[in-house]
């Protein structure tokens, strides 16, 4: 089973990299970019064939390593 994990800084957490990207877009002439948030996308290829079990495993991976839940939220979706 293949999954995509999206890890983003939580909404209250300042994202200076996203801010820098927003400024760079502005200097390229892209107007009206209200906000930019940068995150990570991680692809998982799991041997598990049961979708429920595989998704549950992916979530545990997020909780234990892939995301720092103090500052980041995550979303798991089938790829």
């Amino acid at each position, binding site marked *: 089973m293949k999954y995509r994990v999206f890890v983003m800084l939580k909404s209250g*957490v300042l994202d200076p*990299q996203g801010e820098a990207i927003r400024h760079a877009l502005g200097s390229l002439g892209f107007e009206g970019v209200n906000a930019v948030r940068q995150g990570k996308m991680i692809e998982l290829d799991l041997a598990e064939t049961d979708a429920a079990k595989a998704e549950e495993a992916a979530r545990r991976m997020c909780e234990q390593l892939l995301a*720092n839940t103090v*500052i980041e939220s995550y979303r798991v979706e089938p790829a």
Partner: protein
Amino acid sequence: MMKAAVITFPGSNCDRDLATAFEQAGAEVARVWHKDTSLPEGTDIVGIPGGFSYGDYLRCGAIAARAPIGKAVVAHAGRGGHVLGICNGFQVLVEMGILPGALLRNARLKYICRTVGLKVETSASAFTAGYAVGAKLQVPIAHHDGNYMADPETLSRLEGEGRVAFRYLDNPNGSMKDIAGILSENRRVLGMMPHPERAISPLQGSADGRAMFDGLMSAFAPA
């Protein structure tokens, strides 16, 4: 005599400096490899050094926090053992969950390597007993991700319990409340971004870090 264990991860680069700082203060130092699963018998204090453990992959300190030696460090802290995490070591401690909060990318997105002014906020710990409260120190920083953040509840707890050990005089990285180093609830774990182990001799430009290691020695001196 104080027994220190200094951990080396792939990518650690301040492990020798930290071992030397402990040795100069008179401690017996054991070097521990990240693949080891236990600390030497009788370890009083664990030193987690600066550097770029595992290339800072995923998040700074994230992989190191889950390394084989990690469980032994968490258990040591859980027993009330002392742990000193400097720079990447501080990042490892928050990733382990031993210290609260997180260290984000510096507010101005630059890697900063220079000596900064620090203020000692508490002398109530083995790490800071050698300093007077309010003392101003010159200690180098060298990091890209030292921007300390925590939720408002955690911050007010840290402040209320006097667990902010050091504050920047001129905040270089955007850390909330100018926080440069914090203590655990039992005050036996210190995480800090500045490098006291790089300030133990006037030849290094400052010897202001020396009192931390000397203070630790006195804390473990036989009564």
